[in-house]
């Protein structure tokens, strides 16, 4: 088991590609991604239905060592500022196989 950071990012679906790009740029080698997520925040309701996914959220869950994540979350900040969403960071232990 290895100590890592668990990063959870909720953004609206149109930002999916931007976050994917940031993950790749940061050299982080994996993520898990949930689609069609609903939510509420300062920008009102986002639903998991509707005819386009422009008003749905996606959730990224990323496990990575602390040294890789510090710079990465700073890159995420401007996206959250511009289009909303949250980024939570917590501690976890990763079962290495």
């Amino acid at each position, binding site marked *: 088991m290895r100590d890592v950071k668990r990063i959870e990012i909720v953004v*609206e679906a*149109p930002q999916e590609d931007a976050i994917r790009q940031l993950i790749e740029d940061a050299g982080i080698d994996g993520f898990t991604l949930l689609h*069609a997520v609903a939510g509420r925040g300062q*920008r*009102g309701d986002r639903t*998991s*239905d*509707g*005819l*386009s996914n*422009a*008003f749905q959220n996606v959730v990224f869950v990323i496990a990575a060592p602390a040294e890789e994540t510090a710079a990465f979350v700073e890159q995420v900040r*401007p996206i959250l*500022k*511009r*289009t909303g969403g949250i980024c939570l960071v917590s501690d976890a232990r990763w079962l290495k196989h």
Partner: protein
Amino acid sequence: MLENLLSAPVLFFALGLAARFVRSDLEVPQPVARFLSLYLLLSIGIKGGHELHEAGLTTEVVAGLGAGVALSFATPIWTFFLLRGLLGSTNAAGIAATYGSISAVTFVVATSFLDQSSVDYGGHMVAAMALMESPAIVMGILLAQRFATPDPNQTTRPALDWGALLREAAFNPAVFLLLGSMVIGMSIGPGEFLEVAPFVSAPFKGVLCFFLLEMGLLAARRLEELRTAGIGPLCFAVAAPPVHAALAIAIAWAVGLDAGDALLLAVLGGSASYIAVPAALRLSLPEANPSLYVPMSLALTFPFNVIIGIPLYWWAIQTIGLAGA
């Protein structure tokens, strides 16, 4: 007009609205609603392409396409300058793109209205619809770039990704599927067309009923968001359709379109986008408030056109006596 109110698709739209108002849990599963919208596009694309192939490229075709594209470029401009003072440049640009573009479902309801009245219309109007989506998006973004002052909190605005924007404008799913299906409709022979007709033609009106049920549910939900929007956007959302449609009818008269094509041009001019444009705006102009342009378009303009607008525009076209009315 009463006849329009008693058409099955309009009644199902009303049923969808009613469901929300009595707080029923009725909902159309989202993947199915999306599929039905793809079906309507594919279906109308194939049929339009097939007809266009039969009719050939006439001046009427060129006139229809030209009129549509011109409207799509021009409408955002006055919309923007009209609303800018009231709502700020960013929101005005978002609404400009929305109203310059079109609503495919409104178009489909109008074709079904014409079918019921046994009035002809040209397959090229489907192409006109497809060509009207993108210019409005590009105009909206250009207007925002030129006139919107950047957010004071933000020192630099991120550079606009023109590649992504143009791709979104030109190849968004609706435009792509419409044009693609039209090309296919033009390529296949009449025998092949007959074989796909039991899928693309026969159930069309029934599917439209189902889809309008979903539209009613969506429209009613969005209506609530307008409570905090102020009176200006509300007025615009119901005044724009007849004004833009009147302009479209005038152009149709000027370039000599037949009555059926004129109605479709009126509906394209008078309608506003609630799928393709919002998706493009969230990507390229996220600062514009979607709780403004989506409910205006979906919860006011769409119902207005479907319930009142289509028969009203048709009455106007009959009154001025366009050919075939």
